[in-house]
């Protein structure tokens, strides 16, 4: 399918109605999608309301076993032996009291992130235990014997980061699960803007088969300079004529499309943002919070932009804590906690706290063992899900055994995941409104796992 031509031709033709920031599916495909979306709406009991998923990627591999920590004496003792110098002292942990899930252990949140404790205790946040890339459920014995296939290039940043964004732990499709999810509900949106929006640059997660993500900065979209007055108007007209005439290589056409679309959508988005009521919620200055602030502003203009379904992507860097972990990781968690709390407050302000769900992703957890100054690349890790529709104050999946040499230890405290990434993403996709009949094609290996919906959005 030669998407780019159709996209540009439409832009040049001035037809904005069906742009969706993307190339278009065939008419038959579109009809099929509309039918399935309508069927899904009907099954929701007519709740044709807005829904957005906000994906927060913790870049570098969050040491999530220090974010949520056993605080009972026996659980903390096992944890402390495994983590050595990296252990968070028992007395500093901020207690949380899950109403269900987990196991016999008691849990606490890292003292740097009291907001995470507060969100959890308020029932706005849930924990998903020991999530990671898997091709099939795998015991330690199967991992050691190699009798169950494991994802390629475990423990590598670039590879595992990619696999977390794909519909299965096999890099054999071009699209990400967020983008594909957006494909399947695309027809619910009416505006020209893509339903998949990144505030953190290009990302595989938001690529669909038809949806092409839109990328925005923390201050909104950027207008083209030098377009004012007669000379500016003439120049802009010629510039767009040149973009429209792009020929030769696919690279040239790709750039022309991107550039022309950026000009087109800027007018639309800036107009909507300028007309919007400013957010009252104050956001911290950190970069993650500023990205989430932009997400909140975009959500505030969902109606003029014709958006009923949106997937957002933001990123917090710095989690690759090989050294100085005891100094760096608390700072990162403090930023994460304050940013998530501000964002949730903004959702309340906008009256969409049950319509918007936020989740964390990270390419891997880290080794329980210490290298003397930090931790190295692991595998499974704990993740957070936040929002008014989340079954909060609960733990889903299984929290791992943190003993070195224990049943979950793949070696040096690299924890073998017990919940697959797509079990978590499929649970979110179910809530988002992906028709149930599409789930197994969206997540091709979901059937490998016993619980396709973890229940945290039920």
């Amino acid at each position, binding site marked *: 399918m030669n998407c780019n031509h159709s996209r540009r031709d439409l832009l040049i033709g001035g037809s904005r109605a069906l742009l969706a920031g993307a190339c278009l599916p065939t008419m038959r495909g579109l009809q099929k999608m509309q039918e399935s979306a309508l069927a899904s709406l009907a099954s929701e009991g007519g709740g044709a309301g807005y829904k957005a998923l906000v994906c927060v990627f913790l870049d570098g591999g969050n040491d999530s076993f220090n974010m949520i920590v056993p605080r009972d004496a026996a659980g903390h003792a096992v944890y402390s032996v495994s983590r*050595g110098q990296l252990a968070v002292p028992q007395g500093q942990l901020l207690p949380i009291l899950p109403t269900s899930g987990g196991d016999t252990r008691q849990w606490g949140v890292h003292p740097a992130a009291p907001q995470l404790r507060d969100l959890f205790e308020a029932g706005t946040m849930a924990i998903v235990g020991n999530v990671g890339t898997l091709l099939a459920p795998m015991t330690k014995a199967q991992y050691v014997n190699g009798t169950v296939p494991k994802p390629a290039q475990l423990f590598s940043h670039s590879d595992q980061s990619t696999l977390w964004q794909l519909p299965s732990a096999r890099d054999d499709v071009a699209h990400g699960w967020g983008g594909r999810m957006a494909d399947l509900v695309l027809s619910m949106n009416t505006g020209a803007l893509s339903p998949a929006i990144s505030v953190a640059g290009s990302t595989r997660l938001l690529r669909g088969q038809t949806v*092409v993500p839109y990328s925005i900065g923390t201050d909104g979209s950027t207008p083209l300079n030098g377009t004012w007055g007669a000379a500016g108007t003439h120049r802009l007209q010629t510039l767009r004529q*040149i973009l429209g*005439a792009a020929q030769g290589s696919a*690279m040239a056409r*790709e750039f022309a499309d*991107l550039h022309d679309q950026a000009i087109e959508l800027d007018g639309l988005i800036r107009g909507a943002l300028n007309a919007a009521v400013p957010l009252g919620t104050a956001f911290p200055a950190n970069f993650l919070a500023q990205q989430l602030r932009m997400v909140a502003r975009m959500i505030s203009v969902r109606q003029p932009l014709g958006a009923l379904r949106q997937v957002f992507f933001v990123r917090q860097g710095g989690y690759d804590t090989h050294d100085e972990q005891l100094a760096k990781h608390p700072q990162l968690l403090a930023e994460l906690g304050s940013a998530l709390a501000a964002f949730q407050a903004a959702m309340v302000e906008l009256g969409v706290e049950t319509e918007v769900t936020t989740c964390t992703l990270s390419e891997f957890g880290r080794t329980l063992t210490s290298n003397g100054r930090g931790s190295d690349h692991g595998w499974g890790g704990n993740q957070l899900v936040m929002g008014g529709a989340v079954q909060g104050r609960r733990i889903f999946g299984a929290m791992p055994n943190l003993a070195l040499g224990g049943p979950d230890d793949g070696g040096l405290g690299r924890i073998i995941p017990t919940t697959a990434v797509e079990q978590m993403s499929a649970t979110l996709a179910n809530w988002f409104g992906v028709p149930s009949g599409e789930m197994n094609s969206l997540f091709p290996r979901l059937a490998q796992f016993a619980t396709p919906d973890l229940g945290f959005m039920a």
Partner: protein
Amino acid sequence: MSTGQASARHSPRTASAFLFACVLTACSGGGGDQANTGPGPGVPPNEAEAARFLTQATFGPDDASLASLQNLGYSDWIAAQMALPPSLHRPEIEARQQAGMDTQPRHRQAMWWKRALTAPDQLRQRMAFALSEIFVISDQNDALGADVVGCAEYYDLLVRHAFDNYRELIESVSLSPQMGKYLSHLRNQKPDPVANTRPDENYAREVMQLFSIGLFELNADGTRRLDGAGQPIPTYSQSDIIGLAHVFTGWNYADAAGWFDYTPNYRPMEPWDDYHDMQPKLVLGTTLPAGRTARQDLAQALDLLANHANVGPFLSRQLIQRLVTSNPSPAYVARVAAVWANDGTGTRGNLGAVLRAILVDGEARTGEVGAPDYGKVREPILMQTALWRAFGAVSPDGSFMFANPEFTFAQAALRARSVFNFFRPDYAPQGEIAAAGRVSPEFQILDHTSVIATVNQMYRSIFERVLGDPASPQDEILLDLAPLTTLAADVDALIDRLDALLLMGSMSATLRSILHSHLEVENDNKLRAQDALYLVVTSPEFLVQK
């Protein structure tokens, strides 16, 4: 082979001698099929071809480099460039410090712009920038954020080694205290059973994944080897990383009084054998025996990496992608990798010879110019250098200040978001390019935001940062529009000039016609020159470097 022997065998003198021989015989980089690899006597047939070569080999053609290349021909021009002394960054940074002047990360950026735009050793500077996108450190990381001199020294390391031997480069990179801070092997220790710690795996992993052999076994032409089931074959396993992590133990700042008593500095790290693991280590199928010193282990491990069959094709392909084309043919990679394996004098890893082989190859010069997917997207920051070099950028106060290029271009020297650089060599944007199985790495940093930011920076450069314009700030880099304004009286001459310098004479008839229609109704020559320049450097035809 010990480090000392490596240094003796791979001396720069050897490389120079080879290049000199090449110049005399107009050979094409050694190895491979001569009919496909060289431009013969090697004088560019016209200005457009000279501009094309200089776009690959420098930060952009200007009148002086065009004249020099057309006079010398490719071989002599390369040899002359390689003979120039390196233009370094650190001495100027330290001179600022010694003069009591403020010295911030933005001053290192300014020095990068000054060298990119004005340094005579353009080939070396361009190669160093390419190397800085493979052997990545970044001041966007806490460890290096305030280390202005250290980052300048690391960049200079790449400048100095640009034409040296890979084995020396990888050792210098590995022992750089800035790399040691960035990938945390500085002061990495042997296992401590009491504290229950083990060596840091960070550098061990990335030196293999990114700086030497890559993830998968490669054929000599850079394509992946496949196993019996048609699957790619991993180059190393987690146990190799653990083995290599033990190798990289025991290194501290030079001249430390004790392991815990050190002063940060910029000299190569030095070993402390008490903190080096002396147990046997298994790395890539070779056992490094017990009782070896940190230096002995390092030398053997780096020999293993440097002699691995992957290194030549893995890094040759990436250098071709940085300079010439995103999707080189396997045959092109194979020809360059053959020079990597043997520069013609029996030396392996001669980077100067490799660079030369990349630039004089038939595929770089003429081979696939007409093919629709030949070429590469210009890196956004190199769009700016090309514009400024082509039309005479000036810094009235001499500072060449451009504080945070990454805000505009999503890239700047030593400012990647991670060790994975601004973009990955295998990145393909969604749509036609990915569907065709092609890659276009630079698109990873081109999105709706950065495209407009880059285009707006082009506008600022052309309309708001002009030499002689009193409204333009004198402490920034300004464009000298006078010659182009003079030329603009003749629309065709103006278009021809832009075509030659910026589009390598390949402007399409469509673009020419659109430009002509636009320019002929503009009567002010300066505005005509500005509009022409702006519309060319924002065009898809400029973006894709053929």
